[in-house]
Every structure is written in C-alpha cells, then in structure tokens.
C-alpha cells in the first residue's frame, strides 16, 4: 500500500481500478494555405466550437442545473467576445500566424491578463479562457477524440476541461484524481454536481493504469493498492454517506405534516423554467410562484405566444404532476423593459403595473393567457394575477381568459384545466378579500408588496430599513383577514413573499389558516422541517 497526498475537492469515496488519461497531442498543423484559407478555417472552427458549447450548455442544464450550464455559456461568450476574436483573427489575416497558433495565443493573452488580477475568482477564470481557446483550436483539425473509459475506473488526469468532464460516461467513472487542476476551477463545480469524489494536486505516474486504488475526496488522500483495513474504512464511509443522502432526499420529498396532522404544501418560487429541476431536487411540493418576467427583461421585444408556451410547458412537465402556479406578467412600475414605454408620473410603484398593465395591453395579455392555457394540457397549472385592487379587475381578467379558451377551442388547439387565483398584495385586495374569494380558486399573499403598500415604505430605501417590516401588526391584520376570508369561502390560501420563508413566523401563518408556503428552492427543506415541529 502506498499513500499519496492530494488536495480534497469533492466529497465522497471511491475504490477501484485506476485509469491514466492524457490528452492526445494535436496533429501536425495543416497550415500553409495562406492567410485567406487559414481565416476561413478559423471561422468554421468557431462556428463548430459554438455549436458544441451550445449542446453542452443544454446537456448541463437538463442533467445538472443552471450554475453548471452557465460554465458553457461563459465559454461561448468568451469565444464570441469582440476583443478575443480580434486577437485571434488579426495575426491570421496578416499572415503572421496560422489559425491554431493564433487561437491558442489569443487564449493565452487573455488568460495571462486575468491571472494578473487581484480577485481570486477572476484569476480562476484564466483557465476558462484557455479552455475555450483550446476547444476552438481543436475544431481546426476536426475536433478532439472523446474521452472514453474502459470500464468503471478512478480517472487520473493532469486536468479536465468542463466539456470533457460533462460528456464522461457517468457509469464508468468512480472518482477523479487530478494533477494540476485548480481546486477553484469550474471543473470542480461540475464534479460536485455529478456526485464525483475528487482530489487534485496528485503527482500522477503514467504506469498507474490498471492498479487498484482508494480515494477519499474529503481528506484528499489517494491510496495505491489499499490494504484490507483501508478498504473497509473507505467502504464504511461511502455507505454512511449514501445512507445520509438517501435519508435527506426522502425527508425532503416527504410531505410537511404538522403534529396535529395538517398537511402544508411547501412550494418553491422560481424565475426560470430551468429552476423547476432545482425545486424538485429540494423536495418542493409544487411551484407556488413562477415569475414570468424573466422572459421579457433584458430583451428588445416581447416574447410571443409560442415562446411563452414552451417555457410554461417545460416548467409543468419538469414538476412531474405537481402544481405550477404561473403569475401573469408583473411588469411596469420599477420593472421596465426597453420595449415598454416609460410611464408618466412620479411614483412607479403606484402606477400602471401588474394586472393593470396587462388589462390595458391585450397585445401582451392575450398571448400569455393562450400560452398558459395550452401548457395546462401538459401538467397541473394554475394562473394568478398580480397587483389586483378590485373585484372588477378579476372579472375582466377572467372574462379575457374565458375568451381565450373559447378561441382556442374554436381553433381546435388543446387547452387544459386551470385554477385561477389572485395575488393579495395591496391593502385594497386584503380588505375586499371576501369579495375576491367568491371569484377565484385560491389566494396567494405576496407579503413583500403588501408590506410596502400597507406601511407606505419602499423596501429599497435604506433610510426606511427599520420601517419595512413584514412582522408589523398592520401587515398581520391584513394577512389574517385574507386567510379568514379564504377559509370562509373554502378556497386555498398561500403565502409567497419573504415572510413564507421566515421560520420564526411559520407557526403564526399556520394559525392564521395558511395552507401553502412558497419559498426559494433552497429554503424548502428547512421550512418543511419547521412545519413538522409545529402543532
């Protein structure tokens, strides 16, 4: 037995055969066709590299999550960057360098500049630009051979690019022992998300292939030919980890039931359809608030019906039969987009926003309602209207929804059943809750805006920090009235503001009669645990 030290990166243990992998050296450069020909090769390689990164982005998004997928988006944006591109094509056009040398040199130029910065996070991005440049260079010669593994092995390599790691056959890799990969690199984020135990800083010998090894990602240790005792210890650790993870996953997915037997739905707030996977992983019982503004913000035009339909359908399907509550566009006020003309008036919070805006702009509202109705054929959906202040607004919105449904039917387009609710986030809505309750299937109390409008205090204003308080008795009075009116009418009452995640207040919310709490995905397990402690 030989023990080799390394740096711990991703927790977990692995026992098995080692496989040492080295990136194949690039084939001799096929240069010599002159600057014009080299430039053409470079352009084509860039197209191909961007395609690959787009594929990897999608793969990471569907298998892992947004943070992991963003690594590939970053690499793609680096290749598209005008300065990077100028640095790569300049020497090619002038005939000073071949396409491959120029691509790699551009990567190295920017990597060097990033390494010179103080911020450790930025310094770590030097690897990213070098990796993106290497991907580009590899496409000049038809791309790199994929990393294939002979069977379930502990993979030993100097370093792995995010793309190489992502496309590994997960069933064939037990763990990673890397040589020079930085612990802060993006590969580590991917390895963790893939559940791969990993260490780095290991001095790897090419002769290791085929030897038995044990790896502990928590201590950074690697053993060659581990003895019986070491193997036993690692196995026990691995088993304990697996048991804890299974127990946690089970607890997260289990319903949140109070001691007296009342089940509370603990749902997640999401802003993008991709976040549904995260909500599910945290054990959310559904999505209590799906903000649809993400589709609109930061773009030059309003998304059409088809794009909104795809986003809603994705979320509905990702939640595997659990309810997804979609809030219709909550634009206007302080949420502006370049295509929405800024409104007159000095106080945007009290202006044309939420359902007021969408009722005034059927060209925005109708495509969204149609998209939601169509997506409802693919999962359990609910829709809710924001910033309601009167029963008439609800009547008008519902009438429009009915028209859209009738229209879809006439067109022969399938539409699904839909629960309809309102956000209670203005004092007017809370005070008229008994009237609103007769018109809808559920309430969702948006405590952030309700607090702002009740206390006349802007949450963003630092001078009013003490005043904006969700626990203020006036706010509670309105929450209690709303819940009471909901109970009396026999409809579901949800809370989706910051207050829903305030575990010190969970008990009071349940006492008030709230049936559902919708919180950021990461807060779901803790809120469920809190509900289980209560009577």
């Amino acid at each position, binding site marked *: 037995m030989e023990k080799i030290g390394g740096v711990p990166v991703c927790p977990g243990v692995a026992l098995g055969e080692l496989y040492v992998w080295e990136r194949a050296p690039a084939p001799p450069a096929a240069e010599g066709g002159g600057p014009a020909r080299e430039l053409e090769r470079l352009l084509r390689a860039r197209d191909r590299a961007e395609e690959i990164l787009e594929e990897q982005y999608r793969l990471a998004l569907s298998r892992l999550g947004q*943070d992991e997928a963003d690594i590939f*988006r970053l690499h793609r944006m*680096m290749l598209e960057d005008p300065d990077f591109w100028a640095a790569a094509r300049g020497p090619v056009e002038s005939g000073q360098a071949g396409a491959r040398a120029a691509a790699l040199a551009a990567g190295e130029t920017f990597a060097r500049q990033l390494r010179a910065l103080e*911020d450790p*996070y930025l310094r770590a991005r030097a690897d990213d*630009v070098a990796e993106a440049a290497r991907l580009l260079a590899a496409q000049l010669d038809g791309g790199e051979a994929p990393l294939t593994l002979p069977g379930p092995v502990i993979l030993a390599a100097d370093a792995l690019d995010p793309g190489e790691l992502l496309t590994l056959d997960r069933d064939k890799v037990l763990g990673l022992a890397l040589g020079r990969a930085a612990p802060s690199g993006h590969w580590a984020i991917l390895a963790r998300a893939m559940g791969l135990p990993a260490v780095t800083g290991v001095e790897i010998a090419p002769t290791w292939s085929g030897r038995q090894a044990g790896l502990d990602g928590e201590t950074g240790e690697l053993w060659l030919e581990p003895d019986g005792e070491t193997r036993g210890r690692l196995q026990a650790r691995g088993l304990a980890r697996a048991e804890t993870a299974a127990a946690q996953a089970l607890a997260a997915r289990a319903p949140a039931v109070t001691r007296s037997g009342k089940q509370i739905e603990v749902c997640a707030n999401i802003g993008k359809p991709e976040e549904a996977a995260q909500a599910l992983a945290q054990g959310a019982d559904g999505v209590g608030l799906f903000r649809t503004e993400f589709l609109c913000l930061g773009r*030059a035009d309003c998304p059409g019906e088809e794009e909104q339909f795809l986003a809603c359908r994705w979320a509905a399907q990702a939640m595997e039969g659990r309810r997804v509550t979609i809030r219709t566009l909550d634009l206007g006020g302080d949420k*502006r987009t370049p295509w929405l003309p800024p409104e007159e008036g000095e106080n945007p919070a009290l202006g044309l926003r939420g359902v007021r805006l969408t009722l005034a702009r059927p060209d925005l509202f109708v495509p969204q309602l149609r998209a939601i109705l169509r997506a409802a054929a693919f999962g359990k959906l609910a829709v809710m209207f924001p910033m309601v202040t009167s029963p008439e607004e609800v009547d008008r919105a519902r009438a429009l929804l009915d028209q859209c449904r009738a229209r879809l039917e006439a067109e022969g387009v399938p539409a699904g059943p839909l629960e309809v609710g309102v956000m209670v986030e203005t004092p007017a809505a809370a005070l008229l809750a008994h009237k609103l309750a007769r018109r809808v299937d559920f309430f969702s109390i948006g405590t952030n805006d309700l607090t702002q409008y009740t206390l006349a205090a802007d949450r963003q204003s630092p001078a009013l920090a003490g005043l904006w308080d969700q626990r203020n008795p006036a706010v509670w009075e309105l929450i209690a009235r709303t819940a009471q009116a909901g109970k009396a009418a026999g409809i579901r009452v949800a809370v989706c503001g910051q207050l829903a995640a305030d575990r010190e207040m969970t008990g009071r919310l349940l006492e008030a009669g709230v049936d559902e709490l919708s919180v950021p995905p990461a807060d779901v397990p803790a809120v469920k645990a809190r509900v289980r402690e209560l009577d």
Partner: protein
Amino acid sequence: MKTFTYTLTHPNGLHGRPAMELADFARTLDSAVTVRKGERSAPVDHLMALMLLGASQGDEVTVAVEGGGEEKDLAALEDFFRANL
C-alpha cells in the same frame, strides 16, 4: 452623454453570471455604453474587457450612456445594476 455611478453589491462583483447577463442585456440597448473603474474602461458588451476591469464587490463603477435612447437606456441600466449587481 449621461452617467451614473454604482457600488457593486454582488459577492462575485462584475464577473461570472452577472457580467454575462450584463453583456447580454446591453445588446438590447440602442446607446453605446461603457463601464469604467478607475482608469480602465470597457464597452459593456465586451465580456473579456468587463472582466478585466477587475471590479469586485464594494468597488464603484461609472456607467456612461451615449447616443440612441440615452434616457431610456440609462434608466434600464440603473434598474439592471440594482437588480443584478
């Protein structure tokens, strides 16, 4: 030309996802936008240059908007910085 200054509150500063979102967002604007930190400045849709500003949490940056719909874009950018950076 119109400008505003902003102190970065995002723990990652002006890089990673916030920088990507900013570069993407800036492409929807009509004006030419530059971000300056100290003596270095970067066109807002140049991701590498933005990262090379080395702007971290707590650093102050100045955003300058020129041409096109200055007023509208300035307001949109201020919102964007407040919401994301």
